[in-house]
């Protein structure tokens, strides 16, 4: 490592300090031993921690503050280690053969907070009892072998940690020491898992219509070859299935397009009331077929003008009304309501007995006003426990019309991503048998000046 050796020439003390703080991480990252500086520093801290722990029962923070002065060193190594966000611990070996006898000689505040360590010289086992980690520490203490491994801390917040243990050389005659450093890998794991889930779901959703297409093709080439009536009927079904696949692929592509632009503020202005009219008009054939009526109310023209990408806002309204139509019974009524100005809080409930949940809440600036769009249907509604999962991709409320699955399961996920891009919020309220109401609120466009460039500045 040339930069490090260069630094060594000029500032040996600084290097030792920084390497001491960083070496455990570097080691865990590269799986490579680089013993001297790390051990020196950790030894200083660990030894001091031990000495102080034996002398007075003060809390660890005191020990950390006094340590550098005692060492007479220009750099506050202990404070540096104390300030690290990763849990760092120095462990002293217990009596031979007693793994449960290992004790903590030092633990930085991050480690103390994470494992709720109260006692100065607590046993390691009371902090971490994962056998893999205990084994790592054992090997570092007794076998003097450095190693690392991944472990999961169970419980409500499933956290995944990478633990790395390395032997430290203590004073001669004292108990063997080892350094244990943990790094949080939870987000990485979660992202991996989500990707795997998404792939599994997407391929499953595509496979169902594909399987039915293949089946019908086989039938048409075989037994139904000369049956004109069956052929017509099958071709109709095949067309529906092919359309379903096309819709799914369209939705997947539009979702990935929206995600690409999610962190770029939208340009342009859209009158929400006009957009609702356009969508309602466009959906007339669908609503007429189903016998559903759309009742809508909106403020005066231009009162509900929001900053936004017109196509995307239309898509939000369309997906919401589409859903409402889908879940309404024949001759049901869908209420669409646009109002402005509204605050950035979750809108007040329409039905006091329904469960209510914010699916997306914007960080709103004080004084900022929003336009509110509410779409209510009189469909079967949803149980409370389904609400938090509504914007998950491919999520479907259990037991709801699995026979007629015209939707792709992506509609609300698309809505969420678009609204998020527009710095808006979404909430849902529903109770079983009492319909559902989706509310979307978007920031009103600033009056008088062009909204576009300002929006871009805000985002950057």
């Amino acid at each position, binding site marked *: 490592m040339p930069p490090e050796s260069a630094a060594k020439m000029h500032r040996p003390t600084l290097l030792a300090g920084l390497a001491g703080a960083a070496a455990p991480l570097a080691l865990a990252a590269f799986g490579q031993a680089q013993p001297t500086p790390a051990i020196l520093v950790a030894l200083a801290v660990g030894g001091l921690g031990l000495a102080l722990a034996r002398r007075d029962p003060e809390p660890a923070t005191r020990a950390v503050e006094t340590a550098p002065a005692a060492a007479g060193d220009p750099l506050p190594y202990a404070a540096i280690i104390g300030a690290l966000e990763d849990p760092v611990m120095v462990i002293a070996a217990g009596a031979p053969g007693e793994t449960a006898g290992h004790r903590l000689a030092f633990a930085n505040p991050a480690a103390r907070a994470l494992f*709720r360590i109260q006692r100065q010289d607590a046993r390691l*086992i*009371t902090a971490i*009892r994962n*056998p893999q980690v205990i084994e790592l520490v054992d090997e570092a203490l007794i076998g003097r072998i450095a190693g690392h491994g991944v472990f999961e801390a169970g*419980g409500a917040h499933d956290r995944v940690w990478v633990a790395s243990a390395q032997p430290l050389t203590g004073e001669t*005659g004292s108990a063997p020491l080892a350094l244990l450093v943990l790094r949080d890998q939870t987000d990485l794991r979660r992202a991996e898992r989500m990707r795997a889930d998404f792939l599994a779901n997407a391929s499953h959703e595509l496979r169902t219509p594909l399987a039915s297409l293949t089946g019908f093709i086989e039938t048409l080439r075989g037994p139904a070859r000369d049956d004109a009536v069956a052929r017509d009927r099958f071709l109709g079904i095949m067309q529906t299935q092919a359309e379903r696949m096309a819709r799914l692929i369209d939705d997947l592509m539009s979702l990935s397009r929206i995600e690409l632009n999610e962190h770029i503020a939208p340009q342009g202005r859209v009158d929400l009331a006009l957009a609702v009219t356009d969508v309602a008009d466009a959906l007339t054939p669908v609503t007429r077929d189903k016998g559903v009526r759309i009742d809508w109310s909106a403020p005066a023209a231009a009162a509900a003008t929001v900053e936004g990408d017109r196509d995307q806002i239309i898509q939000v309204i369309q997906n919401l009304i589409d859903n409402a139509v889908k879940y309404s019974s024949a001759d049901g009524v869908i209420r669409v309501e646009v109002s402005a100005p509204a605050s950035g809080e979750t809108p007040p409930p329409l039905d006091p007995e329904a469960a209510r949940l914010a699916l997306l809440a914007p960080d709103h600036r004080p004084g900022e006003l929003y336009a509110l769009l509410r779409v209510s249907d009189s469909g079967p509604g949803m149980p409370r426990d389904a609400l938090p999962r509504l914007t998950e991709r491919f999520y479907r409320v259990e037991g709801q019309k699995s026979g007629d699955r015209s939707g792709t399961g992506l509609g609300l996920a698309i809505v969420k991503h678009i609204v998020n891009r527009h710095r808006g919020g979404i909430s849902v309220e529903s109770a079983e048998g009492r319909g559902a109401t989706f509310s979307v609120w978007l920031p009103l466009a600033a009056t008088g000046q062009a909204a576009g460039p300002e929006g871009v500045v805000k985002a950057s």
Partner: protein
Amino acid sequence: MNEHIVRSYEEELNQLAAEVVRMGGLAEAQVNDSIQAFARRDVAMAQAMIGRDGKLDAMEADIERAAIRMIALRQPMANDLRRTMSAMKIAMNLERCGDLAKNIGKRTLILAEAEPAGPVTRSIERMGKLVASRLKEVIDAYTNSEVDRAVSVWSRDTEVDEHYESLFRELLTYMMGDPRTITAGAHLLFVAKNLERIGDHATNIAEIVHFEITGQEIVSERPKLDTLTP
């Protein structure tokens, strides 16, 4: 140097408790691994965790021996006797948890040869996570001598039972839908039952922890769901 120091009685009791915590960590890992192997249909992981069960048995024997030695040599009284006895009893419960986890591992090996069961697997995994978190909590309560936490685990056992009931129904529907799934379904049923039993052992440990600390048994009758569970 340590071996020359005559260790205090208190120290010996602490060491015994620490060994139980260590065993708890192992039992927890066994349960977690069995659930993970089951959910991912990971044959190698299931085999590895089955192989580790012997370690748990050996630890239980060690703890029992140490506890009996304590009773014989130190003749503990009152609080100390409760601590010794609860170490022994908790070790026993943990060993049972390990056995049940091993059984899940074995069924995972069989299930890996059948078709994936889909959503039912997810439900069982969810129940497994719940049970694992109960076990973790109760061992935490034992480690830090927290009565409140032990009582909270004890009083929430119904949640696990409810999960089991709903899984039971889900599995029946699954098996009735397609008789070819009955073999897999029966194994899944046992996996769920094993998880429910691990939850019961966590509740037992909570009772032991409560008794160890307070010297009294948890008096009020725990709300229990008894429609299907014998």
